[in-house]
């Protein structure tokens, strides 16, 4: 009890006296400095909007924060950071130097998101702020979270991101934010190599990465396949001149299993098993018998295999391995050790044999 009395007052952080940083963006500034754009909450009964935008320039992230703090009467506090956006220019040079400030601070939640912007981070955060009724940091965070929940993109929360970043056999991928229709939006995923921006993949491809990494349930999937083989099943006149048949399905159960068939030759084999329900076809189709269903399955398999192969080819070009093939290699390898550099050299040489197996469970009846 005496100890309690002897300690001085604990410094208070009453919420209406501090500005709570909700999100910030890092951009390159002149002379190697960085510019930090901060969106913070401050609870001022005279202000219209609780979210306020501040910016500061310095050599370090914290330094920039100090600089920005000079422009407000509130003390800036981390602790509720939900989103950090890195500008493309910064990202191309590597974001690792700016990550450690987040890792070091215990007040930073490991459930937050980091993202990369197509232009500058400031653009995404400010332009977005003007055109979004809600607070932009919150909006983007909800957006990313929703996509993860719906299995469109892999889980990219800070926890998973830092894990992949430190892992030698896997490279992280991050959401790529950009401006679309004057609004901030998720436009793809950025693949990283050694903490540097290496290229981008589409959201469709992001799903393939996600499917590779974990089991998927209840995820809608749209596939475009060649119309030709189905000419017998399409009813009546062709509705469009499109040579593709677009079908929409729901994956009720999607699993992948990857094993290494040849360690020395860097050969992998990936089995993708999909159970799907047919939702919609762009041409009215009657699936009268098993044969039609099997044909549809086969065409879908072909298409998805092709998508995977294309994705792998483009990833090899960027040198980034979000699949985590390196980890499988490391496990199979005799020494059980793998350096970042070693995998960088070997990754372009890998071959993966994708075996996609689609099973059409329900296709509904057309009468």
């Amino acid at each position: 009890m005496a100890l309690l009395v002897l300690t001085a007052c604990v410094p208070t952080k009453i919420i209406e006296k501090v500005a709570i940083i909700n999100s910030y963006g890092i951009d390159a500034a002149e002379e190697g400095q960085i510019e930090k754009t901060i969106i913070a909450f401050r609870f001022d009964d005279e202000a219209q909007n609780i979210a306020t935008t501040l910016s500061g320039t310095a050599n370090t992230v914290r330094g920039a924060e100090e600089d920005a703090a000079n422009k407000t009467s509130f003390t800036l506090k981390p602790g509720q950071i939900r989103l950090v956006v890195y500008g493309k220019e910064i990202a191309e040079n590597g974001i690792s130097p700016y990550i450690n400030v987040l890792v070091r601070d215990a007040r930073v939640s490991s459930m937050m998101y980091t993202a990369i912007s197509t232009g500058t981070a400031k653009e995404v955060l400010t332009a977005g702020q003007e055109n979004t009724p809600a607070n932009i940091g919150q909006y983007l965070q909800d957006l990313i979270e929703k996509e993860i929940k719906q299995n469109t993109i892999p889980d990219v929360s800070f926890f998973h991101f830092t894990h992949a970043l430190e892992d030698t056999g896997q490279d992280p991928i991050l959401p790529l934010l950009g401006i679309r229709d004057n609004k901030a939006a998720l436009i793809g995923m950025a693949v990283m190599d050694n903490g540097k921006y290496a290229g981008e993949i589409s959201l469709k491809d992001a799903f393939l990465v996600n499917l590779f990494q974990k089991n998927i349930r209840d995820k809608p999937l749209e596939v475009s396949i060649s119309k030709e083989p189905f000419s017998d099943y399409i009813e009546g006149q062709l509705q469009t001149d499109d040579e593709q048949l677009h079908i929409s399905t729901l994956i009720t159960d999607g699993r992948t299993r990857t094993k290494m068939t040849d360690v020395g030759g860097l050969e992998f084999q990936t089995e993708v098993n999909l159970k799907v329900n047919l939702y919609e076809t762009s041409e009215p189709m009657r699936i009268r018998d098993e044969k039609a269903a099997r044909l549809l399955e086969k065409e879908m398999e072909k298409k998805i295999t092709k998508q995977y192969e294309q994705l792998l080819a483009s990833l090899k070009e960027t040198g980034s391995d979000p699949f985590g093939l390196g980890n499988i290699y490391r496990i199979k390898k005799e020494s059980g050790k793998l350096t970042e550099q070693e995998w960088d050299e070997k990754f372009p040489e890998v071959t993966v044999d994708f075996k996609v197996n689609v099973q059409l469970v329900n296709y509904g009846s057309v009468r």
Partner: protein
Amino acid sequence: MRKNQAKSSNNIFPIKVDKLKKQMESRFENNPDLVFTIYEHQKKKIAVFYIGYLVEPEMVHNYLLKPLLTSDKTWANPDILNDIPLSTGKTKEKLQDILQNILIGEVFIYVEGEPAAVSFILSKKEKRNLTQAETESLVQGPKVAFTESIAINMNIVRWNIHSTDLVLEKIMIGERAPREVRLIYLKSIANETDVNTMRQRLKDLEIDQLEDSSVLMQYIEDSSQTIFPQFYSSELPDRFAYTVTRGRIGVLVENSPTAILAPSTFFSFFESTEDLYMRWNAGTFLRYLRFIAIIISVLLTPLYVAATTFHYEIIPTQELITIGESRAIVPFPPIFEALLLEFIIELLREAGARLPTKIGQTIGIVGGIVIGTAAVQAGITSNFLIILVALSALASFTTPNYMMGTAIRIIRFPMIILAGTLGMIGMMFGVCFLIIHLLKLSSLGRPYLSPVYPFRWEDLNKTLYRLPNSRQNKRFASYRPKDLIRYSKRKASKRKDIDE
């Protein structure tokens, strides 16, 4: 006074009637209520004396004076005892006895020259009718409450426990104005050590007078420093019977409508007999509800204070905006805001309790609506806190025992101060302090926190939750009753068909 009493404890009889009258009147100086009449019957002087408003005048007239004066006998003490048609006749020789008993409504007859006076109990006692329990009301179950009359209370207890095992020991407490106290237990079940401890505590009590059972409780409790009551005080006869038949001890005090039940655990204060009347699963649910309610009541407002003063990190972002916006207009720090609001709630509660029922309701509405909304609009407090404070006040009233409820409401204040100065760490200090304190307490020498500490698995189903009756056939083992088994499990679960 004490010296006088000592002197008067000698036998004063035989005495001249006139002299007796003088003596009595000197005792009741300035007291016009003593009725002292001297009759001459068959050449003998007979004195009849009593206090007017303490006796039934009709009874005195019909059953005492009529036979006494109309018969042509020459009265002597044995004759009076035999021939007067009342069964409560006794002879009293000492002045002290006479003085004491005349005050509880006995009528004395003294025939000049006899060696003692004869007394009859013809007392009249003003009492209120049996009413519903008010502080501990039940939805289901017996509604009647104890009253101020110990005779009626004992009558109710006897009706609840038909057993010759039931002991109602009489102990008088109070030197100047003695009051009857009854120590009640079941001889074949109650732990003897507990009974002896209780008896000794009652007998060793040397006080001038006893105001009420709750005062007696404070005199005989294990620790008088703590805020927590260690004995359960109840106005419900069914709770009394339930506790006594489980091997604990009850104490009734004359003129007090609440009984004392001992020993009690901390958890028993959150049990209601209604838990028994409900089905076991509903009973368990209600009991858990009350335990959650204490946690809410003690920790919710402090948590708000700690979170808004120190730990904004733990508030979900959406909530942060709501709380922040409502906090923005408040000019005080959260600790002051919370203390103010809790103080207002306590004021309302106290005013509601003191005012007559009709005005009390109005005050409730005024407090709830006017002060609540106006305080927010005036920018004194935030909307959010009003909900929390109301919730924790509400939660504190779920405690079946009023004393415990009050204790819980009061410990919230130091908790808020700790939360406002040291944040979550302060709250943890507070909680640890409370737990250590509760661990140190005892009730009639039995650990206050049993059966959780010391841990007894088989007793948990009587405190923390309830099971079907077939699994609850034992008494509370922590209190070591003489007979642990309430009934045979096998017999209870066996079903007999009607044609068997």
